[in-house]
Structures are given as C-alpha cells and as structure tokens.
C-alpha cells in the first residue's frame, strides 16, 4: 500500500496559521501579564502573514489536493483574505476592552486563531469531512470563547445554550451528509454533485431527508429563523469582543459552506432547496426586523438585525444564478464589515465597569464626540440600506437577482421589511443626534482603534460611491 504525498502548496496558509497558533499557545505560557502585547502582536503578524502567503501561492485555476478533499480556488482565496482582514480588525478593536476587564489573556488569541483556522478549512473544504472538520473547529472555539469570561453568569448560560443547540444542528448536518454519502457512495462534493446530476429528476425519500437536514444545519449556523434562537442570547451574553468575532468573519465562512454544499454539491436539486430557503428568508426578514424594534439592548438589536440580514443573504442564494451568488457574496462581505463596525463601536464606547450596550448609552453621542457619531450614522445607514453607503448596493444586487428569476413578490416583501428595519437603525441615529447625553464621560481611546473605526465607517461611503471594486471581486470569486 502506498501513500502519495499530497500537494501541500495550496494549504500553506492553513498550515502557517496552525503552526503559528501552536507557537503562540506555547510562547504565551512564558509571558508575564505585562508582556501580553507580544501575543497580540504575534497574532496580528499571523493574520498578515497568512494573507501574504495566500496570495503568494494563489493561482487563477482551482487546485484540489488531499485526495479531493481540499480546494484552493479564487472563491476560497478571496473569502480567506476577507476573513484575515476582518479578524485582524476584531483583534484590534478588542484589545483595550480586554485589558480593562482583566481578560487580556493568551487564550482569547489562540482560540481566535483556531477559529480563524476553522473558517479557512471551511472555505477550502471540498469534501464533507473537511467541511465538517472546519465547522466543528470553528464552533468549538466559539463555544469556549463565549464562556471566556468565567465570572459572568450570563456568558456561561449563553455558552451552554450555544453548545447544546449547536451540537444538535451539527448532528443534523452530519446526518444529512451521511445520507448523501450513503446514496452517492462518496464524501467528495463534486462526486456527490455528479451523482445528483446523473439522477436529476428522480425523487427519493432519503435524498429529501438529506436535503432537509443539510439545510437545517446550515440555517442554524447562519442563524436563520426558525433556527435563530441562539443568536440573540449568545450575542448578548458573550463578552462584546467575542460577539464581535462571532458576528463578523464566521458569516463569510458560512457563506462559503453554503456555496460548496448547496450551490456546488446540491446544485442539481436547486428547485427543491429553493422553496425551503424562500421559507427561511421570509421568516428571517419578518422576525428579525420586527423583534429588533422591541430591543433596548443594542447587542440584542444587532443580533436580530443579523437575522434579518441573513434573510437577505438567503435571497441572493436562493436565486441560484451567478448574479445571485455574487450578490450574496457581496452582501456577506458588506455585512461582515458593517457588523464589525457596529460591535466595534460598542467596544469603543464601553469602559471599565460600564458596557455601552443599551440604546440609551448612545444618546447625545453627537455632542460628546461628533466624529464617532458620524461614523455610527454611516454604519446605521449602511445597515438600513440607504445610499450612498455600500449597504444600499448590497440590497440592490440581491433584489435584482431575485427579480431576475421572476420572484417579484419576494423582492417587494423584502423591501417592505427593509422599511420596517430602517426604523430601528434610524432610531439609533436619532438618539445620537437629538437626545441629551448622560453626563458620563467618554473613554479615551488609542489612536489605532480610532483610526480603524474611521476607516471602517468611511469604508461604508467609499465602497458605496465606488461599489464597482467589491462587485468585480465578488463576480470574479463566484466565477463565470
């Protein structure tokens, strides 16, 4: 029996991140608390290095390695780059917050890096096993991170709920994939796809079960209604830097596995899963937008807004066209950047012993710090989908994709709930610009955080005025 050595080059970024995460784990052990910045620096270096490596080994063609279970293609390299950048932003925002609360520990960075590794594996997964491996690596790190602040009862409760529900959903996804394996005899996504194309039009009960379980698993990971219950509790319960991490980059990885599993793997069954996604999208848009109105906690509000954004994302995917996938990718990346800014702002305004997580904490921000208020205004307008911010183009592309496949009613429905959604985003703007501030002083923040927040906010406008950049990236990544 011979074991061929797989082509390792396409996986160099993953291997680099793995090696660095292990190194940091060990290095951190020997660091005193006041030298912890070394861990932070190494983490940022890892992300930067991985970004550079990704583009050094990048080739325009898709490369499959590890016996057909790993793929590096333009889609994966693009998504990975976004993941690095967003994760770097997350770590940057988090540092002062963690320091003030005695949470500035190596575990946060090591777990964070492993979560990034999980996302990378998900993005490059080309077989069920790799996909599941990446997903679980990510999920396990996130479960642990949610409970990271051990003294917080709320965080522990959230972590417990997240873990149990997450395990349930993972089980369903795995169950669905095992059916597919049983039917097609292969774990490799392209082989499964071929099997399904060859047997297109033939209905079978196990295949339906497989499809439903896969869709349920994915819907849970994304947080689509009615599999969304974990989202508000976890977003609210977790320490804000962890919420920031959960709310941003994993969405991109989630988009990736949807692309690999539904679009590539189960593409032949598009007509079947389209109906289910319509259902999920319709529910997500309604529930997410409506419940967000009732929230007084901004973390919970953003959690529900995430749910509604997932509804939009699903709209792009269910179109099943290249335009739809490109729109969904555009939407995902835009959303990840917006979420990063939104949660980043909460971190920025929080200080020791005070979490700026209630809507009232944003009152009169314009008087206290007009620049930050303006950045938040841009973020909120972008989330609401108001031009000239980039959120508008994200919505527009998705709507166009939906209209193109003839589902006009769905587009109109989505717009109606965007209007409802606009209400709670605009309410934040109104609080900042019209209400009297509480007399709490704002914390003084370092230059790095302020600069990143400014870049983050202004990016909304820059990408909104020149959306062509991101659009062509999305179109290239999704392919012809």
């Amino acid at each position, binding site marked *: 029996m011979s074991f061929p050595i797989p082509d390792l080059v396409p996986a160099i970024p993953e291997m680099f991140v793995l090696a660095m995460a292990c190194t940091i784990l060990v290095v951190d052990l020997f660091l005193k608390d006041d030298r912890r910045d070394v861990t932070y620096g190494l983490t940022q270096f890892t992300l930067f290095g991985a970004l550079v490596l990704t583009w050094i080994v990048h080739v325009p063609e898709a490369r499959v390695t590890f016996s057909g279970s790993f793929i590096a293609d333009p889609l994966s390299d693009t998504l990975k780059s976004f993941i690095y950048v967003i994760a770097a932003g997350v770590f940057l925002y988090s540092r002062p917050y963690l320091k003030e609360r005695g949470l500035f520990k190596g575990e946060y960075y090591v777990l964070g890096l492993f979560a990034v590794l999980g996302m990378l594996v998900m993005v490059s997964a080309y077989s069920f096993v790799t996909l599941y491996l990446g997903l679980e690596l990510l999920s396990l790190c996130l479960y642990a991170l949610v409970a990271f602040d051990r003294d917080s009862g709320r965080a522990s409760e959230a972590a417990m709920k997240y873990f149990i529900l997450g395990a349930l959903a993972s089980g369903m996804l795995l169950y669905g994939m095992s059916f597919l394996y049983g*039917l097609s005899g292969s774990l490799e996504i392209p082989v499964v796809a071929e099997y399904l194309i060859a047997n297109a039009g033939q209905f079978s009960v196990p295949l*339906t079960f497989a499809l439903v379980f896969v869709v349920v698993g994915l819907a849970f990971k994304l947080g689509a209604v009615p599999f969304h219950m974990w989202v508000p509790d976890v977003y609210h319960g977790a320490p804000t830097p962890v919420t920031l991490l959960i709310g941003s980059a994993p969405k991109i990885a989630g988009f990736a596995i949807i692309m690999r599993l539904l679009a590539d793997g189960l593409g032949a069954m598009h007509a079947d899963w389209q109906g289910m996604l319509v259902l999920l999208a319709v529910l997500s848009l309604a529930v997410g937008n409506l419940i967000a109105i009732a929230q007084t906690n901004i973390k919970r509000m953003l959690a529900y807004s995430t749910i509604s954004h997932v509804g939009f994302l699903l709209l792009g995917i269910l179109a099943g066209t290249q335009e739809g996938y490109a729109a969904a990718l555009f939407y995902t990346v835009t959303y990840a950047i917006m979420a990063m800014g939104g949660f980043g702002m909460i971190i920025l305004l929080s200080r020791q012993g005070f979490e700026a997580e209630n809507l009232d904490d944003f009152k009169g921000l314009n008087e206290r710090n007009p620049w930050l208020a303006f950045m938040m205004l841009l973020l909120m307008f972008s989330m609401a989908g108001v031009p000239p911010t980039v959120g508008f183009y994200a919505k527009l592309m998705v709507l166009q994709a939906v209209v193109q496949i003839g589902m006009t009613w769905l587009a109109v429905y989505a717009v109606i709930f965007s209007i409802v959604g606009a209400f709670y985003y605009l309410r934040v703007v109104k609080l900042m610009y019209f209400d009297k501030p509480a007399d709490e002083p704002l914390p003084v923040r370092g230059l790095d955080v302020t600069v990143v927040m400014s870049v983050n906010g202004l990016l909304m406008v820059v990408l909104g005025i020149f959306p062509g950049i991101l659009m062509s990236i999305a179109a290239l990544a999704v392919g012809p």
Partner: protein
Amino acid sequence: MLLAVLSGFLLAAVAPWLVPRLGAHAGRVLALLPVGLFLWFASLLPAVGGGETLLWEYAWVPGLDVQLGFLVDGLSLLFALLISGIGALVTLYAGSYLAGHRDLARFFVWLLAFMASMLGLVLSDGLIALFVFWELTSITSFLLIGFAHEDKTARQAALQGLFVTVGGGLALLAGFVLLALAAGGWSLSAVLDAGDAVREHAHYAVIAWLIFLGAFTKSAQVPFHFWLPNAMAAPTPVSAYLHSATMVKAGVYLLARFQPALGGTDLWVFTLTLVGAATLFTGALLALRSSGMKRMLAYSTVMALGTLTLLAGIGGETAAIAFVAFLLAHSLYKGALFLIAGVIDHETGCREVPEMGGFGRAMPVSFAVAVLAALSAAGVMPLFGFIAKELLFESALGLAAWQPVVLTLTLAGLVGGVAVAAVVGLRPWIGRPVTTPREPHEAPLDLLAGPALLALLGLLFGLLPGLAERGLLAAAAGAVHGQAVTPNLALWHGLNLPLAMSALTLVAGLLVAWRWDGIRKMLVGLGFVERFGAERGYDAGMLGLVRVAAWQTRLLQNGHLRYYILTTLSATALLLVYALVTRHAVIPPWSSSGVRLYEVVIGAVVLMAALVAVTTRSRLGAVASLGAAGFGVALIYVLFSAPDVGITQVLIETLTVLMLVLVLFRLPSFLGLTPGRIKLRDASISLTIGGLMSWLLLDAVAAHHQGSISRYFVENAVPAGHGQNIVNVILVDFRALDTLGEIVVLGLAAIGVYAMIKLRAEDRRRRGKEEPR
C-alpha cells in the same frame, strides 16, 4: 457637468476649515458657488430652450452596468436653476441669520451637501444615481433639522420625518428595480422611450404604486403630510430652502418626470388627482388652524404640493404648462415668505401670528416684500401667481372623471390659500404695534436681499410672462408632457370661467382672512382632526409595531433552552413534511412476509417499554423501562448478525441505567407538573418525528441504493491485511489511522485529566497550609 454636481460636496468638505477663516463673510463667500452654478446653468438656457436635451455620461459602476449620466432638459434645468438660485440667496441669508452660531461651519457643510444632492437628483439620468441622490437629500435634510435640536419638538419630528422619507425611498427603490426591468434599461432616457412597454407591463400597477409611495412621502401628500410641518423646527433658512423650494418638490419632480412614461392610465389619473386634491384641501384646512407663522406656511406648502400632484395627475398640455408655471411661482413667493418669517423672528422675536402686529412702521422694506409675495401667493392680478392659478383652473376644468369632487376640493382649498396669504402678508404689519421680545427694526441687507429678489421676480414674470416662457417654461412643460408644447402665458385671457373662479376664491379668501381669529378657534375646536389624523395613524402604527415586536419576543425568545430545542425540532419536522408533501412522496407498502416471530416479540417489548417510560409516574420505572427498550434494541443487533454492536449496546445501556438510578434514587416521584395541553403538544411532535423516521426506514428497506461494502472487506482481508479476523483487520489495518487518532485523543484527554487532578491536589495542599494560620 460632473464638476457642477460635485462642487457642492467638495466645498462642503473644506467648509469646516474655510468658514472660521472667513468669519462674518462666510455666507457671502460660500454663496459664490451657487451663484456660479446658476450662471452656468443659465448659459445652457438657449440650447435647452431650443428643445435640445443635453446628456453627459460617465462610467461609474461597471459591474452593475450603472452609468453616471446627467440629463438636462427643460424640467431638470428649471429645477437646477431654482436650486442654485435660491441656494445662493439662502446661503447668503444663513450667513447673517446664524452669524456667530457655534456650529456655523457644520451648518454650511450640510447645506452645501444638500444642495449638491438636490442638483444630482434633478439632473441624474440613471435611476440608481437618482435614487442615491434622493436618499442623500433625506439624510442631509435630517442633519439640517437636527442642527437646531435644542427644541423639544425638533426631537420628536426628527425620527418621524426621517423614517417616513427613508421608508418611502426604499419603496421607490423597489419601484425602480421593477421599472428598469420593464423598460429594459436603467436610464431615464430608456424609461421615457419605453413608455408603452411600461404601461402594458404585467407589474405596471406595482411599479406605479411603489413610485407613488416614494413621491408621496417625500412631497408630503395625504396621508403622509404630517411630517413636513413637524420638520419646521429647523432653522428658517433650512425651512425656506428644503421644505418649500426644493426637497419636498423632489416627489412632484419624480411624478412629472415619469408622466410621459407612466402617466395617462386610469390608475395614474385617479390616484394623483384625488390624492392631490385631498392634500390641497387638507393643507388649507390645517394652515388656517395653525397660529405659528412657519407652521401656517408649511401647511400652505403642503397645499401647493397637492396642487402640483393634481396637475401631474391630470396630464395633457395645459396641465403641463400649469405645472411648471405653478412650480416656479410657488418657489418664488413661498421662498420669500419663509425668509420674511425668519426676518420677523430674527428682528422681533415673534413666531406666533396672533401675537404680531404693527411691524410695518419699523420694517417698511420687509412689509413691502411680504405684501408682494403674498399677493402672488393669493393669485392677484399682475403677479405671476395669478397666471399660475388661472392655468390650474383651466386644467381642472379639462378633467374628464371625478371633476366635481376635484373641483370642489380645489376651490375650497384655494379659498384657504388666499386667506393664509392674506393673514401672513398683512396681519404682522398693520394694526397697533404690539410689545415684542425684541424691539422691531429693519433687517440688514443680507437678510432682505433674498426675499426681495424673489418677490420682485414674481412681479416681473407676472408683468412679462413671455420672459419666463420663451427661455424655460416651454421646454420644461414639453418635458412634462412628453412632446413639444406651445404655451401662451398672458395675464389677460378675457372674461372666462377660470377668471370668475379666481375672483370667487379671492373674495371668499379675504372674507375668511377677515374673520380668521374666529374661524381658527372654531377649527381648533374640531378636535377630531387630531384624533383621526394621519399623524395619529403613524403614531398608532409605530406603537402597534412595537407591541407586535414585544409580543413576538415573548413568544419566540423566552430564554428557555427546551423551547429552543422544541422549535428547532418541530421546524425541522415541518420542513421535512413540506418537502415530502410538495413532491407527492408516498409511503412504500410494508410487507409482513419474512418477519419472524421473535422479531415481533422483541419489537413489542421495545414498544411496550417505550410506552411505560412516557406514562409512568415513577422516575425509576421510567429509567428501567428505557433500559428495557435499549436491551431490546441490543437483541435486534444480535439477531441481525452484529454481535459486537449488540454487546456495545448492552454495555452502554447497563452503564446508563446504573448511573441514572444512582442520580435519581433520592428524588421524589413525578408530580404530574405537565398539563395535558403540553403533553399533547410533545406527543404530537415526537409522533411526527417518529413517523417520519419510520417512513425513511421503510423507504430505505424498500430500495437498495448502493452495493454492500462488506464484500470489499471479505475479499481484501487476507491479501491486503494478512488476517483472518475481518473485524480485527478493519480496526488495525483498514482504519489504522482512525484508531491511531482515537488513541492520541484518549492519550491527550488522559494527560488533561492528570493535570487537572494534580492541580486540584496542589490546590488542596495549599489551602491546607493556609488554614491553620
């Protein structure tokens, strides 16, 4: 062209740096930009007046095939001239009005940005660009209203105005997407060329309604009229500029713009004429009810917007001419009146009309300007407003359907309009001087230049209507009508019905103005307007939304994990049923042949055990019967020649039962806490899932999908693995890496456990040392 539109944004970007350096001259210097723009647009007059349509194109978003195109025809040029012209006057005015204000620089940033957005809106050729500028005007206007937010009313108004206009904007976006699809292009030019295709499109009604929604919200039409007067908390120059001359006209601009493509259908005519007439009437009524000068003017603006909508709805050549003439007239006189209201506020400190009187002596110039503007507003003979009003009557008389209703509402509304003009134009100036917070004195030149110029233009165009007509109005009316028109504006058309109607409104209006105090008290007494008004509807809607949201939260997000799991499972089951039923799946028949007796017996035991487990009242009994079910399953494994799995199952079952018994031993028996309703719910969910799984099982048994893998192991165990025990070979050979992985994991876990035990021991030792002290 690109520079013309963007220059406002560019200047806005440097304004924070520029304004403090200019000091008191800031307004005058910044006004140079709109003046320059005005002159540049005016230089386009000859070409456009000759019937040309100018187009500029820039590539913008290649991915979406979005061009940044600018289209200049009569209509957009009319708007561009108004925006830049009044913009210049307002900038000048604001420099003096807000002199010394702490945030003057910020104010100019938003004002200039707003002006640029507004120019972009009326000049854009692309639908996307138009929409972008459309929402930009909403945002910048919000920031401008927010500028004077010491006011409590401003705070309440802010969210309302923003939500109504932004929400309407999103509806407009959906309308545009559908419109572009129907017309086959994203540019105005394409839409205007594809009029017939759009009107016959299957989604025409949806498109029209979505666009109406956008236009109505922006232009404060009934039932969205309430946000505009509430937005009047803004500084006066802002009110004059945004809420009378420019932004609120964006909605009617849109209607006029799309009239050649969308107009002329029954839906279009009915909706717009009725909504327009209703708005006209409501605006007049509410204006007479108010006492604040700006509020009165705001409602009379609502009235004017209703008139414009009405005219856009009627369609045809006369209405098109009336539309542009009224638009121009209204911008001139309403701008002037608003600015005068600001002058009064600035120089006397008065805002309420009933508290004003006798200012004419101290402020003669302001008085003259106010009278001139008010005469135009009332539609008195030599002024331009008169011509516009005549044309309005002429168009309304030409209406085929609903004419009596529309005509009555229009007449009644215009009586109110005349009354408002008379009250605003005369009341503050004549009569006995009253005591005011500030001693009345004439305003400086910067404040007076704007209103005076606007009022004088109203007189000039009235006396020489050909001046406006030849250069601009003909081309603008042509753009609204969709083909060239030959207007013939004149003061005197002979004795005809419109003239009589004009006279009637004038007399009646003056009567109303004379008895205004009484009428106002009476109208205020009619409290029902507030109880059933649209604003109440908005508030109730918002409250309802919040209530629904709170109710949904309680329902869906109660915080209990078991409900989350319940929802997840039942949703999965529902999805499964949905997927199976939509594909008309059938349950495969089940044949009892080949089933042996002891299989039936074991099955019955398992079933019985499960039943006992869910019905028993004793915890131990439940655990024991669950164990019985487990052993039954183990027996089934054994029967189907999988002894190793069977043994594992037996071991696991034993262990579980033992552990559960140990835990539960001391707990009391069930107390029957679960009500029957919940039991029923749980039973139905578990039965559904169980049924679905049985269905799957039956189907899986019925069809064999893949070849068995056991043959592979049988064939390869000896040649490849050199072993006779196949299970053994599988574990150590075929799945050697698996096994290795398992060993590694177990080893790691063992190290972890060891570390934890050691830590704990150390901990205890340390604590033991500490305790004696």
